[in-house]
């Protein structure tokens, strides 16, 4: 609600997000588009509680982000929000399965259940046979699908994706869009910040950011 976020860059202040008010409901599939530097990623980070607004309030799964301490916020994110990054950010020393198990382990899920859920999620994204491969042995599209599986590990309320197809070719981008659409059909809320018009067009709702303000 009326969220602002500004940064100090040396002597000047950059207003990345200016007075944005929006809501993401369960089952939503929202695409935030805009030119580079328009504030898409910052807005996504604010929505996910990765960043705190300079002014205004963000509510995440019923909790006001400002009221949560560092540990509480980390736990809240872990259980309620799934993130997919443009550069995947998988741990290179872990296998695909172990990467997916990581948030489950952090959430205190037992070893056996972790294994089962990781296996199920990798199957869900079509990578059951690549479970024991490390990220370095996977293609870009496969890595991003592992990242999606990891984001879904704790059955979050919403999946936030920042330029998820930014490093992928057309075919892999299409596969990710199909995966998102399928997840959304299952009731998962998705918010995607993207330059990719094809991906944006696949969303149910589109918002455009221009200089940190919502347009339309």
């Amino acid at each position, binding site marked *: 609600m009326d969220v602002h976020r500004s940064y100090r860059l040396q002597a000047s202040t950059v207003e990345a997000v200016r007075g944005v008010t929006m809501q993401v409901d369960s089952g939503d599939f929202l695409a935030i588009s805009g030119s580079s530097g328009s504030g898409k990623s910052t807005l996504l980070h604010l929505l996910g509680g990765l960043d705190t607004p300079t002014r205004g309030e963000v509510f995440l799964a019923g909790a006001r982000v400002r009221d949560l301490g560092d*540990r509480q916020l980390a736990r809240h994110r872990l259980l309620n*929000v799934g993130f997919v*990054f443009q550069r995947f950010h*998988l741990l290179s020393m872990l296998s695909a399965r172990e990467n997916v198990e990581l948030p489950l382990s952090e959430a205190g899920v037992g070893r056996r259940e972790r294994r089962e859920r990781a296996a199920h999620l990798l199957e869900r994204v079509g990578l059951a046979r690549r479970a024991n491969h490390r990220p370095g042995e996977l293609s870009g599209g496969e890595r991003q699908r592992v990242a999606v599986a990891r*984001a879904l590990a704790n059955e979050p309320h919403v999946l936030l994706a920042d330029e998820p197809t930014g490093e992928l070719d057309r075919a892999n981008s299409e596969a990710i869009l199909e995966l998102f659409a399928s997840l959304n059909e299952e009731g998962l809320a998705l918010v995607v910040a993207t330059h990719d018009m094809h991906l944006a067009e696949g969303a149910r709702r589109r918002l455009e950011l221009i200089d940190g303000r919502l347009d339309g």
Partner: protein
Amino acid sequence: MRLRALFPFRLPSLVGSAAVLVGPLVAPSAYAADVTPESECPADLELLVERSFAEEAGLRVGERVHLGSQPDKVGCPATVAGIYEPKADPSKLTAELPRVILHLPHLARLLDRVGEADRFAIRTWPGTDEEALRRSLAAQLTGAQVVHTDEVIGRASTTFEVVRRFHRAIGLITLTAGGAFLACIMILKIQERRTPIAAMRLLGTSRRTLVGWLVLEAALVSAFGGALGVAIGQLASAIINRYYQWTYDTALVFSIVTPEIVFRALGLAVLLGLAAGAIATLRLLSVHPLEEAGR
């Protein structure tokens, strides 16, 4: 209490300029006009010869030699009763003079110093009140200095104590430098992974988990390094000992890796690892994960 019958002497040091003539070193009989009369020689004169000297002089057990204190005289006939390996003693390491062991009365007679002794050692039975004995002897032996062996060892070991402290200082400096190096390595190693670590923070991994994980990893790396260092130290020690034992023909142990050293080295390595890991991790976690992962 009993008087120690066998007493190691370095004869020249006892009798000043007198020489020890042993077996092959004795002058040929043609020149032996001046022979020590048998009446002046101790009966059944026998001696023990230090192994290295025996090898050098070609002496064997049972061999007959002449033993005397004057170079221009053929000494008393004696039998090599045995060959002994001297106790490893660093202070005798570079001593060049050979050593033999004689019965004290024989030695005194050979040197014509019966009833005299510069020094002698007393071995006591277990349970003897050594301090009371020392006081008693000091009171009875006017002008004599009665000292406990530990004190003698202490005096003789002063140089080695200084060397030991010097080595300890070098070790400490090395470990400190190693610790600083380790801290730098850990910082670099953790910095290398700042992006995935930032991603884990963004995904909800708590700082506590990350600190525990990274610090534990640093401690394990250090412990492994410490163990490797100890293994290298053991190997180097073995090589050094072999080399110097061969060079000086001694059983002296020059380098020892004791359990205490191992314990200290590993303990210090783990502590340094924990500190290095903590510094590197806290440094990393002080930056917002979005800065590390890229906004």
